[in-house]
């Protein structure tokens, strides 16, 4: 179910029959695009594997898949450094992988294994990889947005030009703390990039049933910060917008806001498409699958004769093999010791 908006402000961005063509890549660095194509493909294959393993009963913890949204994290991460501080949310496998997080520690984490990126203590919803800049992801909607603002405050105190990134969704924009956090960041001109992945749904509920407008970036304008709303299924649009916003932040111009319009192919949680639980989006979903961020980049590379069919197939085979190898290893890995239950409550262990 959807409803007519009082303010329908996204224009063609929310129309799944638009923006279907191959990306315009002329003049772009082909090597980089091929690497990013592979990054997106890896994210997708990892998430498909996770979905399959949930279906198979091998994975039990709640997994929120972002299949269809891969271009956002890959396009944003291109402009980040390991010294930046990134926070995510419940649907953050892509954020972790796009920053360079390993497939094996992710799959081990989802299985609750000691080799997981959070030592098996967090599962899919609590990813931690500070070596690549990911300080944490949590499923409390909007729970890390203020943390990212604090990380930005820390970055400013440090000196230098590091920044913080807060990934969240259109549903989080309905949480009060997001507005407190945006106000604080703007009032204190903190170096933070707010990245709203607007996939039009919060759980089962379409944005038209939750907000008077479909454009979340309006909140950024209210807080007097630079904002851009772009096609989040267009890697180049994400990348260009991020480049511009990040450059301003690093120059000390204060926070900025990127709204990336996208769409998730799976349901809110788990591998199913949610068509079976009364979320009426069947025709839209079919249309949105045509605005596939991976296909659009791959088509462009093919048209430019930068990607041969055999290369594409080989890339996919290599990615699948990487995922399978990591899965087998994660499946065989040990769980944390029982002492972990109390040892990690406080720094210094249970005895303290």
């Amino acid at each position: 179910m959807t409803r007519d908006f009082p303010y329908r402000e996204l224009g063609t961005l929310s129309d799944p029959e638009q923006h279907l063509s191959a990306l315009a890549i002329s003049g772009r660095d082909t090597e980089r695009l091929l690497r990013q194509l592979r990054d997106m493909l890896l994210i997708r294959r990892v998430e498909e594997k996770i979905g399959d393993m949930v279906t198979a009963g091998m994975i039990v913890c709640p997994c929120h898949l972002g299949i269809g949204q891969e271009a956002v994290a890959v396009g944003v991460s291109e402009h980040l450094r390991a010294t930046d501080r990134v926070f995510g949310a419940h649907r953050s496998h892509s954020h972790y992988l796009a920053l360079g997080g390993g497939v094996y520690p992710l799959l081990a984490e989802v299985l609750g294994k000691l080799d997981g990126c959070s030592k098996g203590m967090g599962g899919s919803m609590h990813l931690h990889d500070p070596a690549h800049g990911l300080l944490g992801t949590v499923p409390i909607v909007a729970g890390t947005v203020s943390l990212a603002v604090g990380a930005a405050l820390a970055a400013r105190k440090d000196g230098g030009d590091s920044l913080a990134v807060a990934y969240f969704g259109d549903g989080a924009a309905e949480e009060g703390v997001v507005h407190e956090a945006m106000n604080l960041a703007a009032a204190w001109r903190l170096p933070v990039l707010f990245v709203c992945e607007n996939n039009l749904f919060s759980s089962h509920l379409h944005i038209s049933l939750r907000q008077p407008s479909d454009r979340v970036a309006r909140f950024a304008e209210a807080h007097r910060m630079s904002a851009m709303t772009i096609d989040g299924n267009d890697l180049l649009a994400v990348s260009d917008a991020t480049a511009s916003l990040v450059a301003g932040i690093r120059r000390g111009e204060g926070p900025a806001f990127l709204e990336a319009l996208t769409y998730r192919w799976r349901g809110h949680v788990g591998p199913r498409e949610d068509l079976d639980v009364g979320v009426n989006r069947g025709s839209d979903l079919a249309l949105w699958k045509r605005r596939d961020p991976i296909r659009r980049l791959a088509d462009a590379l093919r048209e430019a004769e930068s990607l041969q069919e055999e290369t594409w197939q080989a890339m996919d085979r290599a990615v699948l093999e990487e995922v399978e190898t990591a899965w087998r290893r994660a499946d065989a890995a040990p769980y944390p010791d029982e002492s972990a239950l109390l040892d990690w409550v406080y720094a210094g262990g249970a005895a303290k």
Partner: protein
Amino acid sequence: MTRMNYGTAIRAAFMHLLDHHPEVFVIGQGLWAKWYVGNSMTDLDKLYGVDRIMDSPVSESACTGAAVGASLCGYRPIVVHPRVDFMLYAMDAMVNQAAKWSHMVGGQAHPAVTIRGIVNRGGEQGAQHSQALHAWFAHVPGLRVVMPATPADARDLLIASVLCDDPVLYIDDRWLYDLEDDLPPVVERPLELEGPELLRDGSDITLVGSSYTTQQCLAAANGLAERGISAAVVDLRVINPLRAEPIIASVRKTGRLLAVDGGWRTCGLAGEVIARVAEAVHPAELRALPRRLTLPDAPAPTSKPLERIYYTLVDDIVTAAADLVKEAAR
């Protein structure tokens, strides 16, 4: 020795931390005002600059969350909530994020944030300007909860809280601010080593308090002594994680327990104290059933006569303790 009161002792702790630990900064509402936090932070903004003493927007949630975020980046922020009541907007940052963070990431990161919540009640301030909610927070694993009762603890436990790598809720009580004592020089001690202390030994009954109620228990012990009753007083000091051994040891000796708490009765701290004793001390060792004195299970009233009966008085403790001793003698 330096003469200080509880409020200036807190200020001394801030100064020690800001002088010796560059990673410490303070954020919260009213920090540049003269009256938000009594005498406990006077002129710190002028001494240390507004970049380290950050008066903030009216955003308890975002400011506390920001402090948690900064603590994950090498800083030791102190968030000041001039009233515990308003701090409730920061519940998610404290309970879901800070308290769980270490566990959720397998001990690989620790939010070394201190949240200072001030209990500021009485004076007909009513239901939303009076609350003492320490028991809620002490329920949460991963969140240390500290409640100083003396000027020395007000200073030294704040320092220990801030230097602790875990998130700490430090609760001070405006009713204690004028309490004076001679303080030795600061010695930084790990918070992990701090816990309940026997402040006064006795043989007839054990009084257990925290923060303001500890001072009431000490005063009550004097009153009881005049009646020939020897009361021990245990000051809880750190209520999470709660180490009950000093309480248990004292009750084993006295055979009687009166737990006094400035919070409500149901699921409160006094009940937890009694439970810890009940689990450890055989009924045959007790000379009377344990008892508690708490606020009645009602919000704080504003009306004068209602407020008068709302808060526990020293006389109430004396009476209850004397009754327990008498009861057991029957």
